[in-house]
């Protein structure tokens, strides 16, 4: 009982610290989005003295930010869907099968990460143009796979390995095929890991900058990070719009996180019932 009390106190104390650390910069972003230009460019103030929604209105009506949010959403969703399937199969194959070369494929796909994107965007763009995908969202969906798939494959390998293979072996003894065991045993048990991987893939695709900058060239195909970067106009940060845009762009993905977190908990509950 004594220990449990001290644990609770520590937990809530740590939670308070973390919430504070995360909240300060977020607070500043939201406060900036609500400040008038006078507050922003002339005097310092902790809170907006004359709160205004003008920046939000402007980025939606004049900058048509919702189009860019939709573009990002389409790209990130498609990329994530493909990524989860492809990398779950790949991870399953590497972890649960035994054949020559599987480990090397796993290592080689990591080579994508060994060079900075600044070195890779030129050949990738050559590929994109050769496929006739210049200035399309498809070019992003395709090339984003080159960094989401290795990432998620490795993450899922980690999660799959944490689950004892005996569970699947039992099922297979009961007449389940190997693939059947994947769908019935491994996927449900590693659901939190799969959701986490999906979140990673989504976030990586949502925030990617350099490839989107190079591959797309007009408003209809621009993703949200590119659009936001255009709000640094010349030698001037358009702070109000920039932050309003960033806040707006973060809402869909924040909701997604929230929902996904619930799913992680449900996944846990489902696993517990089985156990």
């Amino acid at each position: 009982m004594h220990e449990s009390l001290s644990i609770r106190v520590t937990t809530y104390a740590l939670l308070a610290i973390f919430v504070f650390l995360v909240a300060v910069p977020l607070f500043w972003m939201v406060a900036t989005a609500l400040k008038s230009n006078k507050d922003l460019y002339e005097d310092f103030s902790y809170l907006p003295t004359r709160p205004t929604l003008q920046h939000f209105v402007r980025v939606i009506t004049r900058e048509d930010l919702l189009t860019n949010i939709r573009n990002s959403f389409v790209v990130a969703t498609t990329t994530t869907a493909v990524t989860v399937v492809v990398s779950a199969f790949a991870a399953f194959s590497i972890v649960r099968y035994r054949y020559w070369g599987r480990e090397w494929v796993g290592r080689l796909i990591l080579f994508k990460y060994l060079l900075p994107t600044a070195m890779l965007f030129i050949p990738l763009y050559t590929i994109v143009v050769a496929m006739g995908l210049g200035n399309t969202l498809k070019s992003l969906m395709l090339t984003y796979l080159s960094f989401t798939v290795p990432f998620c494959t490795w993450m899922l390998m980690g999660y799959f390995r944490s689950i004892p293979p005996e569970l699947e072996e039992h099922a297979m003894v009961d007449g389940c095929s190997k693939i059947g065991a994947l769908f019935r045993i491994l996927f449900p048990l590693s659901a939190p890991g799969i959701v986490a991987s999906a979140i990673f893939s989504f976030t990586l695709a949502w925030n990617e900058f350099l490839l989107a900058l190079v591959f797309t060239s007009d408003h209809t195909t621009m993703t949200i990070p590119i659009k936001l970067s255009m709000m640094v106009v010349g030698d001037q940060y358009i702070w109000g719009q920039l932050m309003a845009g960033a806040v707006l762009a973060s809402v869909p993905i924040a909701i997604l996180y929230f929902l996904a977190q619930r799913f992680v908990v449900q996944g846990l509950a489902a696993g517990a019932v089985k156990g």
Partner: protein
Amino acid sequence: MARPAIRPTRRQFLKTSAAVAVGAGATRPFGTPALAQRPKLVYWCYQFLKSSDDARANFAQEWAKKNNVDLQISMVPLKEFLPKITAAIEAKATPDIIESDAVELRARGQLLDVTDIYKKLEKTYGGWVGNSPKIMLEPDGRVHHIMYGFQGFMLMSRDDLVKEAGLTPPPATWVDMLAYAKKAQKLPRIFGMGIPVSNQTDSQVWEDMMKSYGARLADEKGKRIVLGDYKPQVWEFLDFFTEVWKAGVLPPGVTTWDNTMNNSTYQSGKAVFILNPITLSLWLEENNPELLAKTGHYTYPKGPKGLIQPVTFGSRAIMKYTKVPDLAKQFLWDSMEPGKMDREHGVSQWGPVLKAYLGFDVWKKKPFMKGLIDLSLRGEPQGYPDVFNDAWREQHTNTTISRMLQRLVVDNWSRDKAFVEALDVLGKIYSKYAV
């Protein structure tokens, strides 16, 4: 948000530019393709100041409509121009027309020869202003990009604070500027000089200052580094810089300032002097006219060896891979039409490049425009007295001179050590281009 109230101007502008396009279209000096095909043209429009960008983009749209061209416009900020154009060239998917000051593409043979347009513009509109020919003409007399505006740094001064301190703006020399800054600043709220000493290109001003003390980087041909022969001048400049640093006129943080920080410091009333293009003045005109009224615009102060006032520029060029060279040339020609340029100069930061533009009313209407005219008439190409070539440009993006200064004040190196490193770096860069 930065420049919201341009709507009426823009609408008005559209009307005029449409008329202009029709008028210019009638002469068609460079031929037009058959109307039935609806040729495609990709145009990368330089993004910097919204009102000016809108004006150019809107003109292009109108022009495309009149000429029945399928036009695709991309707004490309300067700092993102290079990665985009690099990939485009390598993937052989280049735009037809670009706007930039990216002379490096000329040197790499990526641009179409537009000498004919250059000559025709010169003849039709009374000749080029100031040093434009020096910037455009190559040694063999050919031209690959058409300038549409001068741009450059000016001394912006809080004249109210300067006068309050009992002084008369502008300071004539850099030494005077420091003295003014010390007297007029109000620590810890207002700092004398909002000038970056960082790894960002705005720190270039220190190289210009050093040159006004008589130093130069390379020889007349722009091939061999000679800065080592100018040690006395460099030392005199470093005496000045050290004094600036010790006087506390530079705000804390200047060693990592990016190119926006001098603006924002001045906007918030925290600097007496900054060196900046008039983009800031145009911003103040709409957002803070009171501050603009207190601001004076001047050419740079002089050094012991005179004035070094460099000028940058915006220009248009045609990528050599274009499938519609005549149409692209037509666009370049039409977009320099004086009626169109008159409207454009009213909302942009550009100084006039053709003499026919010098008579526009806009130069008289706004007080800060006078500085822009001075700059256009007298400004020397960037790097002056050094040759503006690829080697110079590389040492400029490397901010070699600002790095030397940071070695002194950030790393506490001795002058000799920092100077030797700078010479070494300059030598390495220039030797790559010497062959």
